[in-house]
């Protein structure tokens, strides 16, 4: 009897193992397409005749660390396609101008609602790095992610407030669209195939954000008169905030200075 039960349990276990080995149709993670059917929130009326701007520059004080060369030997394609790739963590140009800083209105817009634009924000994987490195997007706005490389990438969004996702793009030219459902500053993106590849996405309910370019400047246009909290976020140096009040058709200049360790 014991022998029979042994054989029976062996047969069941083997069948389970074979089923496990042979089952296919893996859950290739893909993200939901941009939601277009949701009712657009009614935006609080903003009189375009009275709006103003907040602009300024982000600078770095001190000696910036030099960009470090990235070792790409784990993927021959990357090594040949972008051999001079360096770290993008701290982009500091002439006169301390800081690039890749996400500047946005953190508070002050009240309960105004803003419809999500239908035009997508692009995030490209080209030369085995993300272009751009830092981007902003509105809740519900499509984020189109492209693989321009002739190698495999996985797009791993390590969201906390939104849903984490991880999707493969094994073929050059593949595109996927992802939308975020709630505010999150910032959502880190990474490619687990190429450990050096990362990007940051700031998700907001409103369109008042900017990412500094190589000259360190930013501009938040079309703000209704009011008092705002402006935050500047940097992936390594953290955040800084400033309060600013703008009147009708007024442009205020705001500067942020990050200091080296």
């Amino acid at each position, binding site marked *: 009897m014991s022998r029979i039960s042994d054989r029976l*349990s062996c047969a069941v*276990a083997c069948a389970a193992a*074979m089923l496990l080995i042979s089952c296919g149709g*893996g859950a290739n993670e893909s993200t939901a397409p941009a939601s277009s059917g949701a009712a657009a929130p009614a935006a609080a009326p903003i009189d375009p005749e009275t709006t103003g701007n907040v602009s300024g520059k982000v600078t770095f004080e001190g000696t910036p660390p030099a960009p470090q060369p990235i070792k790409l030997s784990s993927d021959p394609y*990357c090594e040949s396609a972008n051999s001079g790739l360096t770290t993008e963590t701290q982009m500091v140009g002439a006169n301390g101008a800081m690039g890749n800083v996400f500047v946005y209105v953190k508070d002050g817009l009240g309960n105004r609602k803003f419809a999500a634009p239908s035009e997508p924000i692009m995030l490209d994987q080209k030369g085995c790095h993300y272009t751009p490195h830092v981007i902003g997007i509105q809740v519900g706005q499509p984020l189109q992610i492209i693989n321009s490389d002739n190698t495999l990438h996985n797009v791993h969004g390590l969201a906390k407030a939104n849903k984490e996702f991880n999707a493969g793009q094994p073929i050059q030219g593949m595109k996927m669209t992802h939308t975020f459902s709630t505010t999150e500053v910032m959502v880190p993106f990474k490619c*687990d*195939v190429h450990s050096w590849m990362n990007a940051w996405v700031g998700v907001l309910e409103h369109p008042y954000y900017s990412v500094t370019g190589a000259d360190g400047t930013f501009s938040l246009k079309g703000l209704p008169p009011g008092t705002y909290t402006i935050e500047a976020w940097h992936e390594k140096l953290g955040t800084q905030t400033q309060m600013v009040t703008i009147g009708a058709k007024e442009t205020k200049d705001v500067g942020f200075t990050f200091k080296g360790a």
Partner: protein
Amino acid sequence: MLPLFAAFVAASTAVLIFAGGLVTSTGSGLSVPDWPNTYGWFMFAFPTSKMVGGIFYEHTHRLIASTVGFLIVVLAVWLGRAEPRPWVRRLGYLALGAVILQGILGGITVLWYLPDAISIAHASLAQILFCLTVTIALVTSSGWKRGYTADRQGPRRFDEDELLQRLAIATTVVIYAQILIGATMRHTGAGLAIPDFPLSFGHVIPPYWDSKIAIHFAHRVGAATVTVLIGAATGHVFFHHARRAELRRPAILLLVLLVLQITLGAITVLGHKPFIINSLHVVNGALVLVTSLVLTLRAHRSRFAHVARTFLPDDLSDEVPRAKSEARRAKSGETRDATNEYGGARA
């Protein structure tokens, strides 16, 4: 052939653990986002030319895991057909169940983005699976079947060292607990929470605490506890059983592996987790565990014989005539004092 194959399966399991350690150490766990397929390809059809970056580690781990899974299927079937001892056959089925569960946990941890609990369970079950394959390899070996020196020197002269038995059990259990803490440390990113070694932030006890520092420090306390227990167990073997090669050898190996393990752990911290060293620390920890397990099982050798004498006759079928005849002899009292779990000495 079966003992040789069982040893090969056990060795393959060690290789699998090393490959798994590489996946974690290189942060490649999610470099293949789908499972059981690989970027939509059937796993075994995935082109080797596309095994770049983190995919190399993750996909290789999957291929080795599949191979080990297949080997364990063969082992379980082989044991089921050729092994007369029911408890050894059951070990084979248990190993088969464990490897299936391990595969499922591996898949879930990928599809759920490496949740700590699942990843730690995956790492912990790997050690159980390794223990099972090593146990099967041990108890099917000719040395085990002979009953070692006990058969030649008298059945109960050495095997009933209760202090050694308790020490060996305690050592094995504490090593496993230490590995669980280590797995928790790895998967919660606490490996460098205390950046210096052997002190902690320049102190014996860390001057400040958070959850990661606590996990890391627990691993160090665990290492000290394991060191004391291994010292006690091996010291006991050298002092009381120096002539028994089947105990002396694992004891020596245990000490060597312990020194190596502490060295690898120190280099892992001081070298900021170099991935090869980090992975060697994982697999060497598994080797410490199974070596202690071997010492434990050999220290309990006579108990297996006792159990077998009690149950073997009814469990044997007509397909195992030699074992059956031995069982008959055992029943009639011809080999009442023998320590071989088949019911008599087989040397």
